[in-house]
């Protein structure tokens, strides 16, 4: 029995052909396929995982995958830790939750209903109404979403609330806030975030991340294209859930009428693009929902809850 691996590999024409085949396959796959797709195909070409050439190609793919993962995707655990910390700042800035537990439950039911129809339906979301006189709503990374009492009181029906909550959920699904501060390179050298991270040398990095997020969400605002994207995603999410997506437009029009007299700083007025352009884009998108007017608005239920606060 030969134990010389080289002699086994240096076979006849059949072995040459097989090797050429595998090499060419690997090359083509490198050029054409996504990493995930390619890994599935490897199993078909070489189910017993015997080819060393193919193994090399596979390793390249796996390595590329994890490099991509570390630069693009912060793990959920870390994302949520950031969100919680930002939420603590949010309460300090915008006030504590309103005391009506039934109303808080109501807003979570609307929010959870729309979140189930979003692009990240499997993470938990948390919604809270805080006692702020500003017309405001914002989303912390990881899914903790704030809405001000003033904004809720200014709405007319549940479809409007559903659209605002959908807008905020969209910021979470698109990871807008995180992407914005990633540009400022706060995350360089930071891995998974744990309590130990905060206690160690990287503790200041974490605080800088939260500070950066406060600046973006409470003062400067996100990139205007992210806001437009969230408006349109909101209409889509509301529509999928079964609410009238026109609610988004009605809220923006309501804000337009109040703009002149309302306080701007720290509210949707200062952190978001001009209302007129948002409304225009939403109206254009509304054409894609020809039966929108027949979808749910649920005015009665909303009014009965609004009366409580």
């Amino acid at each position, binding site marked *: 029995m030969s134990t010389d691996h080289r002699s086994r590999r240096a076979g006849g024409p059949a072995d*040459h*052909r097989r090797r*050429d*085949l*595998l*090499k*060419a*396959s690997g090359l083509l796959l490198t050029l054409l*396929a996504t990493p*995930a797709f390619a890994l599935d*195909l490897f199993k*078909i*070409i070489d189910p017993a995982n015997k080819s060393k050439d193919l193994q090399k190609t596979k390793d390249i793919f796996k390595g590329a995958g994890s490099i991509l993962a570390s630069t693009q*995707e912060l793990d*959920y*655990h870390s994302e*949520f*830790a950031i969100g*919680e*910390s930002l*939420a*603590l700042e949010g*309460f*300090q800035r915008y006030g*504590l*939750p309103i005391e009506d537990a039934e109303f*808080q*439950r109501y807003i*979570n*039911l609307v929010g*959870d*209903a729309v*979140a*189930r*129809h979003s*692009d*990240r*339906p*499997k*993470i*938990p*979301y*948390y919604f809270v109404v805080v006692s702020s006189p500003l017309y405001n709503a914002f989303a912390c990374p990881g899914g*903790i979403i704030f809405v001000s009492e003033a904004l809720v009181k200014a709405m007319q029906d549940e479809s409007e609330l559903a659209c605002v909550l959908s807008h905020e959920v969209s910021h979470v699904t698109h990871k807008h806030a995180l992407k914005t501060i990633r540009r400022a390179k706060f995350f360089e050298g930071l891995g998974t*975030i*744990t*309590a130990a*991270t*905060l206690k160690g040398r990287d503790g200041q990095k*974490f*605080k800088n991340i*939260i500070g950066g997020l406060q600046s973006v969400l409470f003062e400067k605002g996100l990139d205007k294209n992210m806001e437009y994207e969230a408006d349109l995603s909101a209409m889509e999410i509301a529509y*999928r*859930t*079964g609410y009238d997506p026109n609610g988004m437009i009605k809220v923006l029009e309501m804000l337009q009428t109040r703009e002149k007299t309302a306080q701007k700083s720290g509210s949707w007025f200062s952190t978001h693009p001009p209302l007129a352009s948002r409304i225009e884009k939403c109206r254009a998108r509304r054409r894609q929902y020809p*039966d929108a007017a027949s*979808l*749910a608005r*649920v005015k009665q*239920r909303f009014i009965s809850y609004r009366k409580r606060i």
Partner: protein
Amino acid sequence: MARMRPIITAAGFVIALMLLTATASSAADALWVSSEGAILKAQRSSTAAGVADLPVGMELIRLEYEKRWYRVRIPDGREGWIYRGKVSETPPAKETAAQEDSLGGLLGGLTGSSIRADTADTSRSIRGLSPEAREYARQKGTPESCQQALDEVLALKTGSAEIEGFLREGHIGEYAE
């Protein structure tokens, strides 16, 4: 020329494989489950019997569309109806779906909004702030009232049945009539 043959054979082989492994349906016939908690119904109605639970990402063959409902066939061959808002013409983003699917999987049947993802990590408590948030609060001197507020927000849980009941009462989506 003889040396080209293996390359040409390989190219043909790979292309054939890609066609074989490509999804069976054409773009016009395929739908993907995009919403959490989707249930395939025996008839075109929310009150009809459930045929199967449909996980996010499952590929469906579209058979017909009628009044906001699709009639579809699922991979095991069963057919039924699904409300249009629960499906998408494009598959969900694979990376995110896989990562967050595993969160749901770790928690048994309770997924999504009904439970915090970090309950799978035994070093954390079900209610309340994470150790990270507590440490942040300690370092920043966050007022107790704000920590308490976050604690309460995170403790509020809704369940799948409650959400569906809420939609039903509001005649929303598949419950509209």
